[in-house]
């Protein structure tokens, strides 16, 4: 025995007095934590992922979960995670996979920014009595208008405008592919997007026919594997997004394991059943900014210049300059995905160590585009770690037009952020293709919950705007005067272009 067994990460216990041995925990746990033996329920805590499915299903609140029940000798450098990663790799010699977003304890910049409100010198607005506009238009906009007055006095608009995407609230649901998540999960989010008047992304998984009724609220994605892309797919989407990179794993491609490629997934992805779907790191037709511009034009041409085209990049050090390059293509919006962005599966080193926070990325992209006088010509969509309406408001005040949420929408459908999405056994029916598990997610209930979440955030945004004396979201955009930094260092405040609290 060289390494031996490591202490289990979680300990599940059952209060025998409370338990009525109904067996729901056994049925619900796909990881095999529970089993019945001679009328008793036995527990194997080692299999537990802290998905909470058993706790949610237990009618008697008999189950309790504890994290890290066994201590290591504490050490500030050689943390439990560092040691366990080494044991793992010493055994396997492999890259460690992980799910969800960045799990290191970096400071959350959003939590060190506070919002403003009016007192006396300007009145705050009451959203119940005054209109507060959250309507947002995403897409190319002209730098100036040529408006002429005809002799009759009528105004004539001589500038041709590019079609924009209109959203009723500046919150959209980001790209999570069919394959990575279940069709029920996608259907629920698509319905919610339609109800709320916003959009949902397909991810790089094609568009299943079940989603056709919601296609006017769907953004289709073209990524490096080109899975699911054909002209029908492009024409169905309300907009098209080219995915260059992802915040959870900047610089690398994607991998959907063959086990998740069931018959339906194979059809929408247009690949053989059971085969791994591997998206290469770069697009093999994009090796320069001009190649990207060509693809943008190509997609626009294919769809007769009727659809907005977005370009999504991971927030990396040079994001501002890259975004400035994208702004010079006919692209309508640049999506910046911060290093807290989620994923079904990513190498842990990328998830935790590559890329920069969305707050800093949005601030620097907005500034760079302004310095070049082209900020209003392209939209900025921020994503990666948006947890609530204050994050939305702060992202917009830092310069975003709108945000994508991902994890938050999954959490609204029950996800407990256990981070085992890549295993395909999601007990909540979200990140899985196993039919019995998928069936656990009722698209009707789930869509109501996602819609509720979007409604609630929208209401909160109106209140925040009203309190700040602003009746239209565009007056918050890039309005960093309405933010203050609390316990942020000087250089970061310079990047964010915000003053300190009290200043």
């Amino acid at each position, binding site marked *: 025995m060289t390494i031996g067994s490591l202490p289990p990460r979680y300990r599940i216990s059952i209060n025998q007095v409370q338990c009525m041995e109904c067996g729901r925990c056994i049925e619900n746990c796909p990881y095999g934590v529970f089993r019945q033996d001679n009328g008793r329920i036995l527990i194997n805590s080692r299999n537990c992922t802290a998905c909470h499915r058993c706790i949610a299903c237990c009618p008697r609140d008999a189950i309790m979960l504890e994290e890290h029940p066994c201590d290591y000798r504490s050490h500030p450098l050689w943390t439990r995670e560092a040691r366990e990663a080494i044991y793992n790799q010493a055994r396997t010699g492999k890259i460690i996979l992980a799910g969800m977003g960045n799990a290191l304890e970096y400071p959350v910049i959003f939590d060190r920014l506070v919002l403003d409100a*009016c007192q006396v*010198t*300007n*009145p705050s*607005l009451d959203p119940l009595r*005054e*209109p507060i*506009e959250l*309507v947002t*238009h995403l897409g190319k*906009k*002209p*730098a*100036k*208008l*040529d*408006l002429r*007055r005809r002799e009759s006095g*009528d*105004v*004539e*608009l001589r*500038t041709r*405008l590019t079609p*924009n995407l209109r959203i009723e609230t500046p919150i959209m649901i980001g790209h999570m592919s069919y394959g990575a998540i279940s069709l029920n999960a996608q259907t629920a989010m698509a319905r919610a997007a339609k109800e709320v008047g916003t959009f949902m992304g397909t991810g790089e998984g094609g568009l299943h026919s079940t989603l056709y009724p919601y296609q006017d609220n769907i953004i289709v994605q073209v990524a490096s594997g080109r899975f699911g892309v054909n002209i029908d797919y492009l024409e169905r989407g309300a907009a098209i997004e080219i995915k260059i990179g992802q915040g959870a794993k900047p610089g690398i491609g994607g991998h959907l394991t063959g086990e998740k490629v069931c018959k339906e997934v194979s059809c929408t992805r247009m690949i053989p059943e059971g085969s791994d779907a591997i998206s290469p790191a770069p697009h093999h037709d994009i090796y320069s900014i001009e190649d990207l511009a060509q693809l943008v034009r190509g997609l626009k041409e294919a769809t007769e210049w009727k659809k907005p085209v977005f370009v999504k990049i991971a927030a990396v050090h040079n994001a501002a300059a890259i975004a400035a390059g994208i702004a010079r293509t006919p692209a309508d919006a640049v999506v910046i995905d911060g290093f807290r962005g989620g994923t079904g599966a990513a190498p842990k080193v990328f998830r935790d160590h590559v890329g920069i926070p969305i707050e800093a990325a949005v601030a620097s992209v907005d500034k760079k585009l*302004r*310095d*070049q*006088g082209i*900020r*209003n010509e392209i939209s900025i969509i921020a994503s990666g770690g948006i947890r609530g309406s204050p994050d939305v408001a702060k992202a917009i005040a830092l310069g975003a037009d709108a945000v994508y949420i991902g994890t938050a929408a999954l959490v609204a459908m029950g996800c407990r952020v256990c981070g085992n999405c890549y295993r395909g056994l999601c007990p909540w029916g979200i990140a899985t293709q196993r039919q019995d598990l998928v069936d656990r997610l009722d698209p009707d209930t789930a869509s109501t919950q996602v819609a509720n979440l979007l409604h609630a955030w929208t209401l909160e945004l109106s209140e925040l705007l009203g309190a*700040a*004396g*602003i*009746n*239209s979201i*565009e*007056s*918050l*955009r*890039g*309005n*960093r*005067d*309405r933010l203050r930094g609390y316990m942020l260092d000087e250089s970061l405040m310079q990047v964010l272009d915000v003053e300190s609290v009290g200043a």
Partner: protein
Amino acid sequence: MDGSGIRQALSMMNERGSGEGAGYAAYGIYPDYRDSYALHVFFDNIRENKPLLDAALAQWGTIEHDEAIPTYDQPNLRAVHIPWRYFFKPDATLAPGSTTPEDDIVSALVMRVNAARRGALIFSSGKDLGVFKAGGWPEDVADYYRIEDYEGYTWLAHNRYPTNTPGWWGGAHPFNLLDWSVVHNGEITSYGTNRRYIESFGYTCTMFTDTEVVAYLVDLLVRRHGLDVDLAVRALAPPFWEEIDRMPGTEREWNSAIRLAYAPAMMNGPFAIVAANAEMMVGFTDRSKLRPMVVGECGDRLYISSEEAAIRAMEPNVESIMMPAAGEPVIGRVAP
């Protein structure tokens, strides 16, 4: 009209101020130098600050004449600057390729001088017009400059209740750039957005106050983008989407276009604004009308004020008084 009437009008609204800033702008006061840009400058001192400005102006054109602006000590007004005026003709050949070379040179000079903060602040830069302002009560400021000695055809005046930069003369209204002068009651909650937008077009905000962006936005939209003034107002205080969505075809189209193209120029928060240039005067409020604005007419004269009392003080026989709807511009054009 000489300045005595508007001095009287403004004094009716002293409870709207705090005695820390007031000012006047008058059009048509320098007929002898009609073709020169009248630059009004606050110098901190003459010996150190003036030679620098003289040199900068000489580099870009010809100073036709310059002199101290006549002032008269007032017991309640502490003079912290020396007001000076230049009549300046820029050399148009120094801005080749521009369709408005003289305006471009003068506005660039204003931005540069004011941003450099070398004891000189150009607070008025149009032709045949001048801004007179200082820290003090309106009557004291009027008497300090003896504004009744000036004959103009359009007057703006403002009484300030400063909260951000009390007492600073540069912070008093009106704000001016080239032909446009602006007075403003309110606080622009979108200032951070507006400032960053206007600065991306080469303007520099130097006055520590929100009103200056209004002057620059009007300059950008009207002079540089060529919008009619009512359309520029529509960009600054646009209709709500709810209204736009109900408009018929082409009207909806151009109103949407204005909101999309000029979203960062849109001003939020409570305000009533009067802006003027040589040809017109325009008043408008924010689109919820959170600040008052009253309009009076008498013969060929148009009055726009926060209060009716001020209009009646200036024109007891005013023929009509009305209160325009939120965001609706009131435009008076100077008869040719």
